[in-house]
């Protein structure tokens, strides 16, 4: 009897996780890339983002102004940073305010290392971000169950559906209604933030989710928000909820 019940529970759990992972039609941008690009991303010596990871790994042990490195507090990143990128944006205990992973890195820099914050999209910030994100590879996206984030997520969901710019389009118009189809020659992905920071071939550089969002906003012929704007944090928070359960494949290559 117990065996039977156990089997039933196991089947239920398996079905639920299967539905969560792939049965619901959600696809990571990775799945919509050409096999050649997938191979490039999978090979850690061909993926150019790994050059930044290398730089991030050395920055991890570099001592800052207060004589402290990231490693002095966090130790081995492969243990302490595992799954971290899968759960940000989250509320920072120091300020009680939501931050994304890059905001968290800069918060550590200013409050613990007593150093200057790294500029948005600077190589230093992207490299550390890529090194931290790499430690979550394969982990399912797991946004924290925190009521303090719910208003931000609601804002993000609202922004996602709000039409903007001269083209008067919302994120949802492309990434929900027309995902999988073509916009000129490029395929429209579902817009799940599984691989950030990404090495985008069009940029010939590593870039954050914020840069990617700015790219879309400019494409709508709307004015992009400045890097420190709350709108990005709101959108990021909503996108992570929307992608819950999909596996992190950072640092990813995208066309």
């Amino acid at each position, binding site marked *: 009897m117990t065996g039977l019940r156990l089997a039933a529970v196991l089947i239920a759990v398996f079905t639920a996780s299967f539905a969560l992972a792939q049965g619901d039609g959600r696809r990571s941008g990775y799945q919509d890339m050409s096999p050649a690009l997938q191979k490039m991303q999978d090979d850690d*010596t*061909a993926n150019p983002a790994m*050059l930044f990871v290398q730089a991030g790994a050395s920055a991890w042990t570099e001592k800052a102004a207060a004589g402290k490195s990231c490693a002095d507090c966090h130790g081995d990143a492969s243990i302490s940073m595992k799954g971290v990128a899968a759960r940000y944006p989250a509320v920072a205990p120091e300020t009680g305010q939501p931050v994304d992973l890059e905001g968290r890195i800069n918060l550590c820099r200013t409050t613990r290392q007593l150093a200057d914050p790294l500029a948005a999209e600077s190589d230093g910030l992207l490299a550390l971000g890529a090194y931290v994100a790499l430690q979550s590879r394969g982990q399912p996206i797991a946004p924290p169950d925190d009521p303090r984030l719910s208003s931000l997520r609601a804002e993000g969901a609202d922004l996602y559906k709000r039409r903007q710019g001269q083209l008067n389009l919302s994120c949802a118009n492309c990434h929900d209604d027309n995902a999988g189809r073509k916009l000129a020659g490029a395929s429209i992905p579902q817009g799940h933030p599984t691989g950030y920071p990404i090495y985008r071939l069009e940029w*010939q550089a590593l870039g954050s989710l914020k840069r990617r969002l700015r790219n879309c906003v400019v494409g709508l012929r709307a004015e992009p928000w400045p890097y420190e704007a709350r709108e990005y944090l709101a959108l990021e928070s909503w996108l992570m909820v929307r992608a819950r359960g999909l596996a992190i494949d950072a640092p990813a290559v995208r066309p």
Partner: protein
Amino acid sequence: MANVLVNAPKTAKKGDTVEIKALIMHPMETGFRPGTNGRIIPRNIVEDFSATWNGREIFRMKMSPAIAANPFVSFSAVASESGIIAFRWTGDEGFAAEHQVNITVT
């Protein structure tokens, strides 16, 4: 020292063809783009890449401004003897980077 990623087999059978891949971090600035101040950003590219196997040159290429940032080069060589495969990149503004890997040929 620039960031370099090299993928070459650690061991090979004598006479086998081995694939060697080398990736280096470099902006490959073309020299044709204007910057935010309207002036042309000076050219800054890797001009020359070469690989030697125990000092004997096995591969060399001249790079041009049309090559994208962080150039990735893949080539093959016949495994002849155990030793060191050394890579060297040189370019504008005195850029020079070196990297070497060991290979055992049986």
